[in-house]
């Protein structure tokens, strides 16, 4: 079941009706049943792995909690976390194992791989809920929370249906407090309307923008023998538009649906393409993944005894200021390798969503003192420099997107090589052969400008400040205005969306991770 489908909307409407009709004490039960039903819709293995992960999370949490010896707690934490992550790696990344994958396929009776057991067994959204449940076990061990004794609360935490496929990732402390609040939430037209606008905005981004931008992307990335030269940057530019509207649109649907239940989920995007630096970009793009990896991977690594020792050694060797950066660079490398690997376990992801960004960030840190000195001399407080910073960061992101969109590293390298090759002429006839005719281009340009305008309204210079909410703005004026926005978005999506009989709407890019 795709989040952008009529069947999903019917499912949400049915669950919402039941949620607000039953006594308030039974609401959480409705959400648990709905979540299990949703996982079941996604496939037997998705339901199975969601249950396994929840049981592991529950047991791991209880055994990692206080009132036991530290040795027993550490053992429980390590065993359950390793099983959790190993399950993810085994199921999601078995292709990377190569040899082992062939053996496993043979074991399950598929010699040619075409009927591979694991191919069918890949559960949807596992990359998201496995990290979330791992975070729960570690929170119990680090005494950030008290282990939950009620299994069904843990089950709901790990399977909550709006966020099951693509996040946003959440901590138990946050999500469980939202579930508590939901018991008292009153049904209001305003709440449903706010959620509906957010969902419609997500549909608009996915069906009007992402699916349309995909046309030149598929053509150029699919044929860089013919589409060379300027077509390469053009293709990557359109892919940036596609990816952002796809993933952020998906989050709009998820957050909007959850809002209707009175359960607020954290934002995953905060105007990323307005970022001044690569570091800032990653604090504005897929925010909950960055936060998870910072708290559960980078901080423990940085605070570990070996890294502290390395830090002491480096300070003695290179001086205090430079020496303390050495462990930081090591931890950043581990972090970015993990980010890349998490995106798919293939080298094009490890490079394009990981190590490349590590280099950009470290280079930024190394040149920071020089840049601080130069900035006042070149008028860094002027608007042109501010625009330059965002454009530069965007271009650096595009260099990573080449790897992210390509099938393999060699494919990405060839894509770069294609910039310098001769192919079909750069003209309108060739470009529009992908289906991107003038009408489509105009619709896309207008829709992208609308998204840009909304992001410009939301934007705050500091990523720590909560962005403005366009929906809250409309709501503050009148509910009628909110309904009007909803109607405009629905009509625009119905007229300009890429869907309908015979049209195969691609699944969300991040739902495939």
């Amino acid at each position, binding site marked *: 079941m795709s989040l952008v489908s009529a069947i999903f909307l019917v499912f949400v409407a049915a669950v919402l009706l039941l949620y607000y009709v039953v006594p308030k004490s039974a609401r959480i039960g409705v959400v648990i049943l709905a979540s299990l039903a949703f996982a079941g819709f996604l496939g037997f293995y998705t339901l199975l792995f969601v249950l396994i992960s929840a049981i592991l999370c529950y047991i791991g949490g209880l055994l990692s909690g206080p009132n036991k010896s530290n040795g027993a707690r550490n053992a429980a934490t390590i065993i359950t976390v390793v099983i959790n992550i190993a399950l993810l790696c085994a199921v999601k990344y078995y292709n990377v194992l190569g040899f082992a994958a062939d053996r496993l396929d043979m074991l399950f009776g598929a010699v040619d791989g075409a009927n591979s057991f694991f191919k069918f067994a890949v559960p949807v959204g596992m990359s998201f809920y496995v990290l979330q449940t791992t975070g729960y076990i570690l929170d119990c061990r680090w005494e950030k929370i008290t282990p939950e004794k009620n299994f069904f609360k843990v089950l709901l935490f790990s399977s909550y249906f709006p966020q099951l496929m693509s996040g946003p990732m959440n901590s138990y402390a946050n999500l469980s407090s939202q579930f508590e609040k939901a018991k008292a939430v009153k049904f209001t037209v305003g709440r449903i309307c706010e959620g509906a606008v957010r969902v419609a905005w997500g549909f608009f981004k996915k069906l009007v923008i992402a699916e349309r931008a995909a046309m030149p992307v598929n053509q150029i990335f699919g044929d860089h023998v013919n589409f060379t030269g300027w077509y390469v940057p053009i293709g990557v530019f359109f892919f940036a538009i596609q990816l952002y509207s796809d993933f952020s649109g998906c989050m709009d649907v998820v957050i909007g649906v959850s809002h209707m239940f009175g359960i607020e989920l954290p934002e995953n995007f905060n105007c990323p393409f307005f970022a001044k630096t690569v570091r800032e970009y990653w604090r504005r793009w897929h925010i909950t993944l960055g936060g998870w990896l910072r708290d559960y991977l980078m*901080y423990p690594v940085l605070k570990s005894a070996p890294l502290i020792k390395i*830090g002491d050694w480096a300070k003695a060797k290179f001086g205090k200021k430079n020496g303390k950066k050495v462990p930081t660079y090591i931890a950043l490398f581990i972090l970015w390798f993990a980010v890349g690997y998490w995106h798919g376990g293939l080298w094009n992801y490890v490079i394009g969503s990981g190590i490349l960004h590590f280099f950009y960030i470290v280079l930024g840190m190394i040149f920071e003192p020089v840049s601080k000195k130069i900035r006042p001399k070149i008028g860094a407080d002027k608007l042109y420099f501010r625009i330059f910073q965002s454009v530069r960061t965007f271009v650096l992101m595009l260099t990573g997107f080449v790897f992210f969109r390509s099938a393999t590293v060699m494919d990405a390298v060839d894509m770069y090589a294609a910039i310098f090759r001769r192919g079909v002429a750069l003209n309108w006839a060739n470009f529009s052969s992908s289906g991107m005719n003038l009408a489509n281009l105009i619709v896309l340009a207008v829709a992208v400008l609308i998204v840009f305008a909304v992001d410009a309204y939301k934007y705050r210079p500091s990523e720590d400040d909560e962005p403005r909410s366009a929906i809250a703005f409309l709501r503050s004026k009148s509910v009628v205005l909110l309904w009007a926005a909803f109607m405009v978005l629905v009509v625009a999506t119905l007229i300009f969306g890429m869907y309908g009989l015979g049209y195969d709407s691609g699944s969300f890019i991040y739902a495939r991770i």
Partner: protein
Amino acid sequence: MTREEVYDKLNEVFQDVFDDEDITVNDSTVAADVDGWDSLEHINLIVAVERCFGIKFTMGETTGLKNVGEMVDKILAHLA
């Protein structure tokens, strides 16, 4: 150790970690108030505080501190 004594030592740690002799912190100081106190420098600060007071913060405390006041509460709790 009194709260004031903790602050005397803590100010020295902040001044040393962030290389600024003018820094003085109080209960309501947060990361945004101190130039250079970002997610990467945070662990350097935590380790320096641990060494100064001879204590060990849990990972929960490391990531969950809301402001310097909370940090001082935790230091006093560990010293008690």
